[in-house]
């Protein structure tokens, strides 16, 4: 504590010398974030087709692969198609309860091993087992909590039943989302992030939020663009058309 007090006191002394040096203000926070978020949702309820088209373009520009599924029931078939094409043997998924569909029966029928996270199961043994499954999997299935059209970005919140490594450790990441997740601009994302943190302890069950814009990439060797340096080599987005 002494370190903190001393540290802050030193900064306070320096800050006290600054009046007149700066006149600026930070970005205004929304006054009522939850209401502002609701207003954006309301607008997007009408404008989502344009946002979806923009997302598809931007997502493909960053080497993402875009798919459509008629409804949630059709999603396992789309995922099975991706898995078949890439010769995937092991799959890890978020909790089917969180996703709204269970891809396991369809994938198992194709001969894939499927490990699903389950909310509420978090003992040490499960933890270790899940980590091994995620590290060995070639394909990871997640949802997407927000989808940003402007940049082709999938935004994932970690939490119970939604582990953070599902979109990271496997070679291929498949994210499934519906129209209610679409946003147009980073500014709107800012409002959503404010709303998510209003009652920080209730709004989020996990500790991380990941913005994912295409596959993992590097250009560190002679500026040659290479994909899949640590994270997935491929990212697929499945848009669910039906409600």
């Amino acid at each position, binding site marked *: 504590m002494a370190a903190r007090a001393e540290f802050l006191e030193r900064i306070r002394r320096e800050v006290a010398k*600054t009046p007149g040096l700066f006149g600026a203000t930070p970005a205004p926070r929304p006054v009522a974030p939850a209401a502002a978020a609701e207003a954006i949702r309301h607008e997007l309820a009408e404008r989502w087709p344009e946002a979806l088209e923009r997302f598809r373009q931007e997502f493909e520009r960053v080497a993402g692969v875009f798919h459509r599924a008629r409804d949630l029931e059709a999603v396992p078939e789309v995922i099975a198609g991706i898995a078949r094409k890439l010769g995937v043997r092991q799959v890890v998924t978020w909790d089917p309860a969180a996703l709204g569909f269970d891809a396991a029966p369809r994938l198992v029928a194709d001969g894939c091993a499927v490990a699903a996270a389950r909310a509420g199961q978090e003992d040490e043994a499960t933890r270790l087992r899940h980590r091994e499954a995620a590290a060995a999997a070639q394909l990871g299935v997640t949802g997407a909590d927000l989808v940003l059209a402007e940049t082709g970005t999938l935004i994932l919140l970690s939490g119970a039943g939604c582990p953070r490594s599902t979109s990271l450790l496997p070679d291929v990441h498949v994210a499934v989302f519906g129209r209610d997740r679409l946003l147009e601009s980073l500014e709107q994302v800012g409002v959503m992030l404010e709303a998510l943190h209003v009652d920080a302890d209730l709004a989020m069950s996990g*500790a991380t939020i990941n913005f994912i814009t295409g596959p993992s990439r590097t250009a560190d060797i002679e500026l040659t663009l290479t994909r899949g340096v640590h994270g997935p080599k491929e990212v697929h987005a499945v848009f669910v058309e039906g409600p």
Partner: protein
Amino acid sequence: MSDALLRTPFPERAGAALKDTFLQEALTIATTKFIDLRKEAFAGFPPGEALRDRARAIKEATLQHLDVHLERLADSVERLGGIVHWAATAEEAREIVLRLARDRGVRMAVKSKSMATEEIDLNEALEHAGITPVETDLGEYIIQLAHEKPSHIIAPAIHKTKGQVAELFSRELHGAFAADPEVLTAVARKALREKFLQADMGITGANFAVADTGTVVLVTNEGNGRMVTSLPRIHVALMGIEKVIPSMSDLVVFLAILARSATGQKLSSYTTLVRGPRRAGELEGPEEFHLILLDNGRARQIASTLREALYCLRCGACLNVCPVYRQIGGHAYGYTYPGPIGILLTAMLKGNGSVRELAHASSLCGACKDVCPVRIDIPRMLVELREHLDREKIAPWSERMVFRAFRRLLLSPAAFRLSARAGRWLQRPFVRAGRLRGLPLLFGNWTRTRDLPPVAARTFRERWKELG
């Protein structure tokens, strides 16, 4: 940076870089590409200019109340179960990391790219303590294996050829790997994947830290930042105190311009927001989260001459456009932070005396100021720095004398007239083909690589008089 390198005077370090033909070519290709990508990114983004102003305003406003924002950040992190440490100096920061590692029996730490950890020479300290630090950004991994230092803020290994990397990997990782970036990246993926899964501690920097929510934000393309904050049981984030921003609404302003300035991307592949250790119900994530707030000379600039350097986002845009950096690369600067902003940051962290020579490694052309996402007035600060070095008698005696003499001349019309006449007479042996070349003594330093127009046969003042 090694003391041996710093014992070599800057002109010699720069001279060596100029003779390195591969480095010259690599620098030209890399910096030109980055410049084009950045230009294209902003050309297709009309709100960009207004957002740059906004971002600058946020930095100014935050510094104005830095104490308040830091307290709020610390409180938020602690509420989430994280532990906040306060490091006034680089040494204190190193001690904190070492103590954490020792107390918890850490044997290996994986790191995602962090200029702040470079700044405090953390890797050397860990190694001395018997803890293996593993850099996981591909570029950083390459230079760590080669026992070198980063030469660019965002592309640390641009000075290496794929052939050199293949040789290095083949030797260090025991294999025979082709000089193909695709192959070499796959080799690094495999080697580092094991490390991520084995390491006890993950060490990161922070691109931003949001005070309202206690969120540390990491921007990466490779995904190593995510690995390091997801897999090891302890996460330690080290950040300079100037990285704090008030809110999520501020964060999105910076995100919109950071990647565009650095690599021309709209967003980097991964933007990772981390709030404390893993929460109840989460399967993954570290058990412990530590945030180290590093001062190391920053606070004393809040109300001082290098204040604006505290706005820096470490995007590297000013390096790419700098005519000096483009010629000599990052290593010749000799410190952690290269390029125009690097000179100012070095002065901030190591004292003005450390940039006695570097303060002049700029043509003051202003290109850096034009591309800086937060419009830092680097040229103005460099001029002030030079002035300070002169006033404090840190600049070499000869330099100060020359400027003193020059000042006298400019202040007295008679002396100025006389000097023009004397110059006309004295320059005669050195004018060849209408240019001044090969001047003697101290002046030879200037004419060794350039020439000068000679003093005119009739000066402007003489002609003005005739007109009148």
